[in-house]
């Protein structure tokens, strides 16, 4: 499969880039389940004076569906369990889980449901969707970059910025930035 894609790529590069992409993506079409092994959801929040607070969610689930005829009809759904947040500092983790931030006891899930997927390049797309956290829903955008594709497995590198104040998580601003930088690697296995 890899050989085939890269074989095409070599040829396609001589022709036109969209051709390559079309080939790669139609190859990729299908439904995938996000596999926690091989995936990570990391975040960081800048702080006054430099540096920042970085962490990751250990537990999440989701699916990716790539439409064969129309990439724009592709879909991404992710559910994160904020209880699983980890920063390497127990006190910070407890703070993040508490009602100061995620209120994980009352809002055990953070959900992202894509509403549109727009191709922005050969291997990249802009994913728009609705993010729900602590009972509040807002549209958010993430950039997805195809990072790997081989027999039944697809991998994306996804980045985006979210303003935490909108979700009732503005505690600590402006000492800690309102902007949360997400950096995710999502590996899907074909269903």
């Amino acid at each position, binding site marked *: 499969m890899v050989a085939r894609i890269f074989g095409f790529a070599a040829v396609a590069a001589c022709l036109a880039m969209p051709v390559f992409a079309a080939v790669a993506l139609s190859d990729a079409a299908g439904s995938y389940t996000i596999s926690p092994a091989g995936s990570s959801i990391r975040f960081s929040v800048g702080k006054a*004076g430099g540096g920042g607070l970085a962490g990751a969610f250990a537990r999440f689930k989701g699916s990716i569906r790539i439409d064969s005829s129309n990439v724009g009809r592709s879909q991404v759904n992710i559910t994160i369990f904020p209880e699983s947040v980890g920063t390497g*500092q127990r006190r910070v983790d407890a703070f993040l889980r*508490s009602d*100061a931030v995620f209120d994980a006891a009352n809002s055990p899930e953070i959900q992202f449901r894509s509403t549109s997927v727009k191709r922005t390049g050969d291997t990249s797309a802009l994913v728009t969707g609705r993010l729900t956290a602590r009972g509040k829903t807002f549209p958010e955008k993430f950039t997805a970059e195809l990072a790997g594709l081989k027999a039944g497995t697809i991998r994306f590198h996804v980045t985006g910025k979210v303003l935490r104040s909108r979700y009732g998580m503005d*505690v600590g601003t*402006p000492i800690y930035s309102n902007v949360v930088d997400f950096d995710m690697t999502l590996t899907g296995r074909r269903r």
Partner: protein
Amino acid sequence: MPALITNSTTRYGWAAIVLHWLIAAIFIGQFALGFVMMRVSSQRTAFELIQLHKSFGFLLLGLVILRIAWRLGNTVPALPRSVGRFERRVAPLVHFALYAFQLALPLSGWALVSVSMLEIPSVPFNLFVMPDLPLAESDSAESFWTSAHWYLAYAGIGLVALHFAAALRHHFWLKDAVLTRMITPSSDHNAE
């Protein structure tokens, strides 16, 4: 009038008086705030109160440095003659100790946030980033400075209570000028 800014041999001037009461209010407020912020149930409120406690702590440190500089460059009014031998000896010691606590409390607080592994920046009143003291971070250093800060806070407020009681005793019991001369310099309470 300008003469009333500085101290004379018999009375405190406005500068010493204003600094005394401003610092007294912040010091006692800091104790109350410190006590409350460690006991509120909301972690969000606790976080915000701790930042406020740090802000006022730095403000206090600045005012205390100013106060000590002013005190060193000024005449110290003699105690009224009515003050007894024992108090004549003890009052300066208590005042010296109060100065020490006014410095040690903000410094130990600053030390404890500087060595904390949580690395929460200090941004007094959200105005500027206060650098940390150059001390090595570790959980053990944090618990050391936290208990130092705790003991200093409780010992300091105990001494303030004594100081407060002494001031009330002078005013209501001995009916001398010890308290009033810390309120206004205008009537030159002499050292009779």
